[in-house]
């Protein structure tokens, strides 16, 4: 194997910029900003955005395509799009940085957020089991810390602990699954695994390995029945952290998952588009998707806490996204990427609205957003766009995401097999979902504010982030080809 370190460095420029940016933020804080408390937040925010901007620039100008460094990394359209997507979502989440009273160490927060983003961009490019594991763990460890960052609030610590315990467990599953795969095929990179598996055919050990990997990714994607951490984490984590966990982390996770399953394990997919079903990973993914759709949509009906409601909605969306993973083999990753990235935009926006509200009072219960249209028309309007996009109402992007994924899934075999039935189930459940999304909007746009509720002042970075997300949701919804045309 001929190794080309120049090409490796070239391929890792976005990660290098992010890591250097994180160090710069920390260094600047220690030597300069710490002594100027008034500007500490702004400096950390500006440097963080600068690093993300440079990384995004490097990500969209990859200067080469194809496998890098003996197949460790893969630079293709999906990599470029995913890197740009996760960096953009991270930048939006960064703009929601809590106020100085709630966040005493802004530089650490920004630096860890940048490390998490490094993990995401690496996930987007990873094409070898060790890199996959490394990237996933870099992102996860950063997210555990971010989830527990609000030291003033016990729920934040609870969220971090739960997230860490579940996440640690899933990392063990992932590593065990990977080690079995390596043992079976003697290869770490996905191409080698694919060749070996195609030659070997299925074996019981392979099924165990697949099971382990799927369990691990079920945890990461918050898919039922591995979803139990999600409501507590969404509820307790600081808003930017929750936004990042719900958006960029999910996008990167699904991309790495798709890459692992299709180019890597594609020969063991099994058949579920027609009856009878044959054994492979697709029936399991379909089962997890169906369970997530049911658990997420039905669980959300009972929630009185906005953040928990968003968590259950995330579980439901994970189900639909997993259907997109199954369809990616036939129609490519474009519908999945479109769905995951626009879902991320809407979730970041929804958490953004909550984070702005947090500065003026509690923002947990549904009634905490009551009368938002009087307290801040901007927030209320943006929230309406985000929530309606999550509900899948045209012309917002959330609608087209679902439409494209379901169309792709139905093209696999129509209604001749379980995967088609799942698409119909998902369409039917979207009517259920509209109910709980409208519950949020009923409070925000119809109900009157509580007597003591004051008008909300929206900080500039948050206002920009919200407006950009809302505008993107509308534009991408009307012109989906801007994304679909990339692939």
């Amino acid at each position, binding site marked *: 194997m001929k190794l080309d370190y120049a090409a490796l460095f070239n391929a890792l420029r976005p990660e290098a910029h992010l890591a250097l940016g994180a160090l710069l933020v920390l260094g600047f804080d220690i030597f300069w900003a710490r002594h100027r408390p008034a500007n500490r937040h702004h400096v950390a925010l500006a440097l963080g955005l600068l690093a993300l901007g440079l990384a995004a620039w490097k990500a969209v100008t990859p200067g080469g395509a194809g496998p890098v460094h003996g197949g460790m990394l893969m630079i293709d359209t999906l990599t470029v799009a995913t890197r740009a997507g996760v960096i953009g979502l991270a930048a939006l989440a960064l703009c929601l940085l809590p106020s100085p009273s709630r966040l005493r160490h802004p530089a650490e927060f920004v630096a860890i957020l940048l490390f998490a983003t490094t993990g995401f961009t690496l996930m987007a490019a990873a094409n070898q089991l060790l890199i996959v594991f490394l990237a996933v763990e870099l992102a996860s460890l950063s997210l555990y810390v971010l989830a527990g960052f609000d030291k003033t609030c016990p729920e934040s610590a609870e969220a971090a602990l739960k997230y860490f315990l579940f996440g640690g467990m899933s990392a063990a599953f992932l590593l065990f699954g990977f080690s079995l795969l390596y043992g079976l095929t003697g290869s770490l990179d996905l191409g080698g695994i694919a060749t070996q598996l195609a030659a070997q055919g299925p074996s019981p050990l392979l099924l165990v390995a697949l099971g382990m990997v799927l369990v691990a990714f079920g945890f990461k994607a918050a898919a039922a029945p591995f979803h139990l951490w999600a409501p507590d984490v969404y509820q307790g984590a600081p808003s930017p952290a929750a936004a990042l966990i719900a958006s960029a982390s999910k996008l990167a996770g699904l991309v790495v998952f798709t890459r692992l399953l299709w180019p890597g394990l594609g020969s063991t997919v099994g058949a579920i588009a027609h009856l009878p079903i044959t054994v492979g990973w697709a029936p399991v993914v379909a089962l997890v998707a169906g369970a997530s759709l049911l658990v997420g949509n039905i669980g959300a009906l009972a929630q009185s806490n906005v953040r928990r409601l968003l968590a259950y909605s995330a579980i439901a969306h994970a189900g639909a996204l997993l259907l997109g993973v199954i369809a990616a083999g036939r129609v490519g990753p474009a519908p999945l990427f479109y769905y995951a990235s626009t879902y991320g935009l809407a979730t970041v926006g929804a958490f953004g609205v909550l984070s702005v509200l947090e500065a003026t009072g509690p923002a947990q219960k549904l009634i905490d957003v009551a009368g938002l249209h009087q307290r801040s028309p901007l927030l209320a309007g943006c929230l309406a766009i985000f929530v309606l996009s999550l509900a899948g*109402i045209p012309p917002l992007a959330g*609608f087209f995401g679902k439409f494209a994924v379901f*169309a792709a899934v139905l*093209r696999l075999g129509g209604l001749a097999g379980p995967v088609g039935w799942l698409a*119909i189930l998902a369409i039917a459940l979207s009517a259920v979902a509209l109910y709980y999304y409208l519950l949020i909007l009923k409070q925000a*746009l119809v109900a009157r504010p509580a007597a003591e509720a004051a008008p909300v002042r929206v900080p500039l970075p948050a206002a920009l982030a919200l407006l950009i997300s809302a505008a993107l949701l509308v534009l991408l919804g009307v012109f*989906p080809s801007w994304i679909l045309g990339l692939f």
Partner: protein
Amino acid sequence: MNALPCTIYVAFTGALLALVAGARSAQAARVVALLTALTVWGLTLYAASGFVPAAALQDLINIPWIPELGIRYHLAADGISLTLLVLTGLAATTGVLFSWNIGERVGEFFALYLALIGGVCGVFLSADAFALFVFYEIAIVPKYFLIANWGSTNREYGAMKLVLYSFAGSALVLAGVLWAYAAADGAGFGLAQLAEAATRFTHVQQLGMFALVFTGFAVLAGMFPFHTWAPTGHVAAPTAASMLLAGVVMKLGAYGCLRVAMPLFPVGFAFFQPAIAWLAIAGILYAGFVALVQEDFKFVIGYSSVSHMGFVLLGLAAANATAAGGAVLQMFSHGVIAGLLFAVVGRMVYERTHTRQLADLRAMPLHRLIPFAAVVFVLAGLASMGLPGFSGFPAELTILVGTWQTRPLWALAAAGGVLVAAAFTLRAIQVSFFGKVERVEVNAHHLPPITWPEKAGALLLLGATIYIGLCPDALLDWIRPALRSPLFHALFTGGAS
């Protein structure tokens, strides 16, 4: 004709402008809304003046939209679309006039109202299933906020029920359309393309897709037994929203049945035809009898809407050009008459007396207090009963004649509905406006006089129903050629069993 797509853009632009204007002054928002609605109506009339009836959809715009999925932004119109667009313009304009007195969050009210109009125009113009679905859903969601914010009795419940029913219906439509797209192996979403591909579908596929798409649209058309959202929704809605709901939104459902479900899946339609006809008859009779015993004035009108929409569905189910033409005429006629009835009940009576209980209204000498409202309601009631001289007469007569050609028993059963309609309308007129007043205390009820926007709106609608009643050919001349298009050909010759 080429002006028609502008109705969509004008309505959406007007919605934004109303929102902006509403932030400064309520009156500005009202004026913007009125001007927008008038422009939309004017555009449809302008298009109608140059309209040459043809036996096909006439392309207005056809450009690639999402080439990856074969979706095109394809707008086209024929006599059926044009009829319903003229109705939309009329209903929009009068709806603005009847909501002149809305005083709270005026800008937002009219923004949602105009967005709804834009969606409705889009549905009537779409010749691509994807575009049609997008506009259809744009027309659904604003209703929730219109009703929940500005409605009356039990508004949040009524709004949620209405929107969930509509959305569940649209989910069925989506499932059916996507299934057809997949079965056609991703050929695209153009209605013509899908219809062509559907000829190759298996029997089971045709049946399944037709059942999904037709049921989905029929929910919005208020087909029995999926009609229960309509009365509660109408009662909860503010006047203008009730008018639009009964006047145009329920027509979206019937239009979807006629434009999408039936021509695409003629085999499925032939199979379900008797069931649809009997459900339509059941709706006509059941809703009529229920309207007969309602104590809330608006519920009477709400159930009468369901009953009249039953005639539309029956006309479609009869599957011949006469009955289908009558059904489209009935859509127009009911849109105008229901709008008028809701305007009288919701705006002229309820907002003055603050009650809609027939028992309370009986004690008020309304015919002396608001004579204008009484006259309008009597005329609208006569039109609703289907008396000659009003648009309801030619519409229901054509439907019954056409149905007789297919199956005389259906026509006989439905004709009973006309009698029931007469009974509940006369009861409503008699009890509400001409109640027996023991001691006339005119001064005890001081009601504000009828304002000019109300008079203008009522006269416009009355004029429309009388004009079409006297010369229904004005619309039938547009509708009949459209029904001769090749798309409907298989339906109307092979469909009748």
